[in-house]
């Protein structure tokens, strides 16, 4: 461990449950891969426990447990994240793990920064374009939110009207 003073207070805030979900996930990811961070994590745990009066400890309990786990098969289990409350968009008849097709759910829509004023007056395209964009993503970029598209009529020569 560096005896030098560190500036990064992320781990401290993580321990207090005060990071945003995204920051916390990244901090945890970093923690599980970084020995120095793990040492600091242990120190913070000792400090907190001592302040709360937990003085009783077994020397190197963690080391002994981890050594014993070396002999255990690696635990693997289905991914199960806390459920988000989103309405079902598909047919209610779908059973658990039923095979239904659906659109990509989008993250909250962001404003696109590019003004489209330079283009011709827009034209309201039929709604069947969106599924094609989603289907194209099989070959293009995965898991990107649905695109905002701007449409204009064309004559057969390809010139915009």
């Amino acid at each position, binding site marked *: 461990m560096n005896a030098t003073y560190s500036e990064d*207070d992320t781990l401290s805030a993580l321990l207090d*449950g005060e990071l945003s979900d995204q920051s916390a996930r990244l901090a945890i990811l970093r923690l599980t891969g970084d020995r120095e961070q793990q040492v600091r994590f242990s120190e913070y*745990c000792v*400090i907190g426990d001592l*302040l709360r009066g937990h003085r009783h400890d*077994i020397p190197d309990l963690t080391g002994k*447990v981890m050594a*014993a*786990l070396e002999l*255990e098969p690696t635990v693997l289990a289905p991914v199960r994240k806390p459920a988000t409350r989103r309405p079902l968009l598909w047919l209610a008849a779908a059973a658990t793990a039923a095979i239904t097709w659906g659109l990509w759910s989008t993250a909250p829509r962001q404003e696109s920064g590019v003004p489209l004023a330079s283009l011709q007056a827009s034209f309201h395209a039929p709604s069947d374009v969106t599924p094609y964009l989603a289907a194209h993503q099989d070959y293009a970029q995965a898991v990107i939110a649905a695109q905002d598209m701007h449409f204009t009529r064309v004559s057969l020569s390809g010139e915009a009207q």
Partner: protein
Amino acid sequence: MSDREIDLQLVERVREGDKRAFGLLVEKYRRKVIRLLSRMVRDPDDLEDIAQETFIKAYRALPKFRGDAAFYTWLYRIAVNTAKNHLVARGKAMRTVSEYAVNDDDEPDERLVAQDINTPESELLSKQVAIAVNEAVDALPEELRQAITLREMEGMSYEEIAEYMSCPIGTVRSRIFRAREAIASKLLPILGTADNKRW
């Protein structure tokens, strides 16, 4: 992300194959588990065996952990059952304790567990460490000491502490961090080099 969610994330990491994430959970809860077990178990050798077994059992049972209870509540129940089974198998009596003391928030209520004054000296986090931490806390500038005390001993959130201390939340975060770092640096000569603390 709440403390409970963080435990869930660590459990997920373990379930994805990262055993080291389990070590972090052990580090976080070992003293709480030991304190609980020490109320039920007299023999220090038994205590160590049962503590180890508790965590190993928890590791094996992780696929069944659904996240509807807090991780520590789930661990608590494994600890109690492990202790009972271990002692019964050896024909040993267990100290009576309100082991099922779980309050409405589904967290084990440790205030119902009697304070023990007979823990052997060798099992206490060395007097030196405890003294060092106390001295380090006393030596902190007032605003750092207050911040870390409110956080660790009163369990207040940054927002609550900010309100109490009339300062921005960012300041609270920074003060708690600096307090921890100051205390940790005083522990360094006692706890030895980092290598000794790796697991």
